[in-house]
């Protein structure tokens, strides 16, 4: 799990400006830490076709946001929201469906470092907001 986080931190796949048209985006930052990111989402016919992000972030927020992008691409909007909901349950030590989380399971211990919950969810909360806005 450690390797998964270090891999996505040292070599994030989706950390770049969006390529092409049709993206929606939102900004997310915190008064309590340095994380300051923008996330970008593109959907076609109810399916996420691309998800990318840019900004300044620690290892935990970098890896968690990058893994999120991996998970969302190719998913239907509802599936994407379910993945985020299950992740949120995991982070807050509630029952969750581990089958949809894949590499995001690396963050299952986040609650032991309460100060890092924000890092592990900053990108996820932002993407959730974009998906919900698209839906409504």
């Amino acid at each position: 799990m450690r390797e998964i986080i270090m891999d996505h931190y040292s070599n994030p796949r989706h950390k770049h400006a969006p390529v092409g048209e049709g993206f929606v985006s939102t900004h997310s930052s915190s008064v309590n830490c340095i994380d300051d990111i923008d996330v970008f989402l593109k959907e076609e016919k109810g399916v996420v076709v691309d998800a990318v992000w840019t900004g300044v972030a620690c290892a935990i927020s970098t890896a968690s946001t990058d893994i999120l992008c991996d998970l969302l691409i190719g998913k239907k909007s509802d599936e994407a929201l379910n993945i985020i909901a299950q992740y949120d349950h995991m982070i807050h030590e509630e029952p969750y469906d581990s089958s949809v989380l894949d590499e995001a399971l690396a963050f299952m211990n986040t609650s032991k470092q309460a100060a890092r919950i924000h890092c592990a969810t900053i990108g996820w909360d932002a993407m959730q907001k974009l998906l919900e806005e698209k839906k409504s």
Partner: protein
Amino acid sequence: MVLSRRESKMIDTLKIKQEFPMFRNGIQMQKHPLVWLDNASTTFKPDCVLNAVSLYYTHETSNSHRGDYDLCFNIDQKILETRQTIAKFINCKPNEVVFTSGTTASINLVAFGYGVKFLKKGDEILLTQAEHASNVLPWFKVAEMTGAVIRYIPLDKDGRLTIENLKKTITAKTKLVAVAHITNVLGYIAPVKELAKVVHAYGAVLVLDGAQSVPHMKTDVADLDCDFLSFSGHKLCGPTGIGVLYGKYSLLAKMDPFMTGGGMNAKFDMCGDVGYLEPPLRFEAGTQNIEGIVGLKAAVDYIMGIGLDNINAYEEELKRYAVSELEKTNNVTIYNAKSEAGIVTFNIKNVFAQDAATYLNSQGIAVRSGQHCAKILIDYLGVVATVRASFYFYTTKDDIDALVRAVKNGGNYLDAYFN
């Protein structure tokens, strides 16, 4: 708790730690004994401060200047005694001591009560890039409201404010210079007495941010000749929510109140004619933070009992020790090795500051990561974020050793996440 006595004779940390419940109670963090190295952020409170606060609620409760009975008279006396104690502490007159909620409120009071009233379009306010947000944003507001212009005195290559650079920057248009006596990220001591001479030669006022200096070194406002000085109680073992604005009486007398209300007016009528009280009461509208005021007195008495010169010398010793031990690990970049104050700003090599701070948390060590409320300094240091360890008179070399041990293993920072 195992404590050793490796420090110099001037400060008895073993005895001192027993006077602080946060140490005596064996508080732990992440199942490790707490190592508190975030004193630039806030400090622990000794029994005498807690007792003073408690006594107010158990034996002395009353509002101030509101009644004709003994309890009220007694608390008014205590507030007056606190002003006298502060006056002795920083060498001013008791009526030059205004109680505020802290440094931020103090600086805002100068900004709005003095800056907005007296600055005009085209006037200059000088700051430095090392200032805390509390000593930047109020001046942005003054500039916005008056048309005054903000300019920055350049720092030297180490990040220090020098007389030469002030002389190069100050002009006939400069009306106000606002700088920290000790900067909160780098910990350099500004040459305030010399700065004041230059500032006054140009007819400007010197607003000194003492949040990081007053708790750690002797501050004599008469000798420094600063025009205003702000500091917070909670950074010198006092309660949160209480602080002080010192101002030269002649300047306070010209200032407008920032807040109006009860306790600061002499009389008013329905036509809107209001007579305000003289300073300092003019600036203390509403019921004051009385528990904070009595707690602040206890804290200042306690600090004076230990002695500011002892505290200052001891922290310099800790700083030298920390820099030397951290450098030996070969695993850190230190950004302020040369500065005087007990603040070490660093990064563990190849570890993002926040990840480092989480790792240190997992070892029971409290440090601060981030931009330390001095966001413009980042342009200067060339890093997005740093880790800051800051000391006080109760910090021991054992505390620093714990930090150094953890830093040696900093490469395994994700351990914090999996253990």
